[in-house]
């Protein structure tokens, strides 16, 4: 061969035509050509040479609309203006946001289309890039040095994979996890082995999120029969953990960590297993190791700080919280916990002035937004203030903070989450108040009337406040109130008084807004109403809003998935008849588990969003 242009076997290299070179070089099943030319691209890298290189590569695809940013801030400004189809983003962007923070903020603020491809480019395989490290995973990773061929191959592959996963992702956005699991099976049947492992992983997650650990386990075992994937092993471990088999779970996670020291998710689970066995020192040590491996994760540093605080390891807590604040500066996941935790640390070091300063800062930063976290910021800051004074031995000021909190609680009947309520009550008792903390604890019991573990914990708080018998009586009364609320709804429903039952449950929800059983019953009755009296858009909306709330309070409930499926089945579809399900049984809710289990919170997918900001070319 003399002429280089003809040097390569034609079958191997279809042509110099870049679009052709993208199709697999071997005669495989014909895949439709992806139209790369008309898409919008964003390249983010702080090095101009790399931006030019990537731009040239994209141009050889025919791409015309290519924007560039040299920093995380610039990238966010562009992402705000335009819905890009493809984002190529370097992890390391110098000063300011890093690539992961750009991704997280873009996802949380829904600046990416569901079909958008986000490719993270990094100098090396980092811990964050091995599965399990980050909550928000990019669609693909590219390790430098980047070459055109690899970039184009990966872009094609991730685009195709997104197509396969798209209907499933849509079901996840709608929180219809049972439908999503069925769609996984359909896609496996359609695509064969190509995406099998990815689809099985997705299917297992759907079973987890719909409260079917037994079926999730089957899928994980199916994967492990083929290959030892750490995430499948970890999946089995998590199910063990949820079942309270802490020692078995510990062994499984220990094995994963021994084989792959960077599988960060296993450390978090290992720490939970130790905590479950009451071995808090060990749990703390594991969290410390995890934080060293993945030092740039805000939630990981926060967890470490809180664990260290519980262990009384003040220097470690301080270090973790401070790191958290530094990291949070550019992160959308910045949250007040680190400020409050650091304030406690300052209190324990008798630096109350600094502690108060931090509390002021936290309120300024987080007190003005909307959402539950922001609404209760003043309460949380006040609780911490009381604890800071209490722990630094200043009982007079602790009492004053307690009284101020008391006044705030009496002025506004809204109550924060159960965990914060318990914290408030503990602090109020500690400074010598009685009525308000008792009332707050009763609120918690009413909202968790079937959670015996939590009630034991609350009884202990009463005991410590020397209110043993009064406390026991109050707990009983609060529990009965909740049961009565529920039962009255069921009586109305059984008597066919659907309108009244719906009304009753609305009232019940204002009284026990966090009671998952009441919320489930409320949805069940709404579903009944629609089944018998026809679809109603308002009731449909109401049911979905309640389910949304339940999934936030206690994710991974079986009854959630069933109800979500029933609600979706009621949507009027011209060609399909809603399946006639068996009558629901609100008096005996299917969920008979004794206590809510710590289920890891699933990452919420951004919902669909139209691309209004498309520019005209």
């Amino acid at each position: 061969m003399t002429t280089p242009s003809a040097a390569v076997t034609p079958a191997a290299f279809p042509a110099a035509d870049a679009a052709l070179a993208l199709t697999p070089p071997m005669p495989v099943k014909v895949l439709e050509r992806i139209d790369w030319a008309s898409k919008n691209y964003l390249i983010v890298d702080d090095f101009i040479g790399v931006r030019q290189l990537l731009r040239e590569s994209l141009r050889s695809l025919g791409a015309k609309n290519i924007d560039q940013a040299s920093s995380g801030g610039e990238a966010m400004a562009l992402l705000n203006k335009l819905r890009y189809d493809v984002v190529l983003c370097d992890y390391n962007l110098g000063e300011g946001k890093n690539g992961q923070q750009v991704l997280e903020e873009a996802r949380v603020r829904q600046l990416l289309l569901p079909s958008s491809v986000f490719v993270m480019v990094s100098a090396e395989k980092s811990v964050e890039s091995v599965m399990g490290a980050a909550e928000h995973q990019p669609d693909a990773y590219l390790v430098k040095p980047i070459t055109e061929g690899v970039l184009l191959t990966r872009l094609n592959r991730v685009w195709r994979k997104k197509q396969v996963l798209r209907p499933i992702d849509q079901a996840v956005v709608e929180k219809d996890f049972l439908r999503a699991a069925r769609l996984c099976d359909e896609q496996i049947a359609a695509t064969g082995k190509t995406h099998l492992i990815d689809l099985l992983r997705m299917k297992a997650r759907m079973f987890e999120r719909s409260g079917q650990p037994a079926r999730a386990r089957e899928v994980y075992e199916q994967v492990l029969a083929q290959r030892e994937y750490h995430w499948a092993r970890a999946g089995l471990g998590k199910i063990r953990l949820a079942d309270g088999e802490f020692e078995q779970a510990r062994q499984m996670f220990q094995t994963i960590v021994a084989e792959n020291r960077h599988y960060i998710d296993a450390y978090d689970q290992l720490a939970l297993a130790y905590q479950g066995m009451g071995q808090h020192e060990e749990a703390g040590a594991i969290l410390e190791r995890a934080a060293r491996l993945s030092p740039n994760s805000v939630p990981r540093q926060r967890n470490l700080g809180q664990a260290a605080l519980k262990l009384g390891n003040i220097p470690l807590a301080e270090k973790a919280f401070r790191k958290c604040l530094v990291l949070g500066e550019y992160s959308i996941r910045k949250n007040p916990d680190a400020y409050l935790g650091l304030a406690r640390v300052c209190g324990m070091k008798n630096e109350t002035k600094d502690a108060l300063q931090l509390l002021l800062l936290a309120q300024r930063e987080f007190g003005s937004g909307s959402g539950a976290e922001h609404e209760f910021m003043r309460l949380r800051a006040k609780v911490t203030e009381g604890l800071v004074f209490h722990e630094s031995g200043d009982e007079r000021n602790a009492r004053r903070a307690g009284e101020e909190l008391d006044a705030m609680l009496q002025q506004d009947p809204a109550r924060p989450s159960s965990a914060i309520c318990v914290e408030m009550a503990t602090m109020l008792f500690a400074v010598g108040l009685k009525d308000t903390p008792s009332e707050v604890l009763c609120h918690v019991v009413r909202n968790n009337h079937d959670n015996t573990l939590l009630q034991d914990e609350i009884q202990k708080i009463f005991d410590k406040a020397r209110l043993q018998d009064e406390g026991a009586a109050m707990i009983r009364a609060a529990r009965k109130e909740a049961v009565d609320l529920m039962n009255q709804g069921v009586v109305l429903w059984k008597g066919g008084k659907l309108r009244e039952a719906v009304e009753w449950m609305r009232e019940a929800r204002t009284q026990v807004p966090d009671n998952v059983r009441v919320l489930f019953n409320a949805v069940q009755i709404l579903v009944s109403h629609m089944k018998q009296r026809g679809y109603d858009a308002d009731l449909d909306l109401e049911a979905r809003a309640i389910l949304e709330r339940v999934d936030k309070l206690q994710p991974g409930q079986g009854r959630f998935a069933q109800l979500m499926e029933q609600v979706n089945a009621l949507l009027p579809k011209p060609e399909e008849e809603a399946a006639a399900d068996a009558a629901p049984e609100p008096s005996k809710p299917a969920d008979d588990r004794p206590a809510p289990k710590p289920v890891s919170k699933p990452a919420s997918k951004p919902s669909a969003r139209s691309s209004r900001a498309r520019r005209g070319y």
Partner: protein
Amino acid sequence: MEEPHHAPELFLFLASTAHDMKNSISVLSGTLERLLGDASPQTEKAYPQMAQMLYQTRRLNDSLMQLLALYKQVGKPGYPFDMQPIETGQLVEQVVALGRVLLESRGIELELEVAPELVMHVDEDLIVGVVSHAVNNAVHYTRDRIRLTVQEVDDGIEIRVEDNGDGFPPPLLATGALLDKGAGGIDFLTNSAGLGLYFAGEVARMHRHRGRTGAVRLENGGPLGGGCFILTLP
């Protein structure tokens, strides 16, 4: 203890320097590929020199990648090994794309014999790196043909890179035979090619399945009569 044996500042410094070097090499080889792609020996007087520059840039790139992987403790639990399912066709496509301009510029023909829909479970970046390095290496040894085959064998997958040159020199074959014994058996002073081979061996060993591990060996002969680089994965 997690990041090997250095102070954190030094590690950060090394990491950011490596990042810079990778950027430079990306730009260098991307630019050369573009220039070569637009030119031909007839139109461009410096064509052979440019081809040589690309070859040397690739060698630089491979060595840097291998050194960094060794620094990150490739072959040990400390390396962030990332196994994913991937179709053989996808993997080969990347190797082909990486080598395309270099092979064209050297007038070398690449034959493929691949079962494209075969699903492998591998760390894609590592395996693409190893196979692509084997192809670059074959560019040095071959006369004018390189053959890349991927096929299912007993208990696994075999990837072969073969050429029609004079075969590997005896010292290199000897080194290949020592791979199972780890770095101790390789004389890096007299044998710079040992690094690539050692890296390939470590990468292969990281791939395990049901008690079996991947392996690398070198042979002379084969269908094209030259050197054969053989990577087996369980």
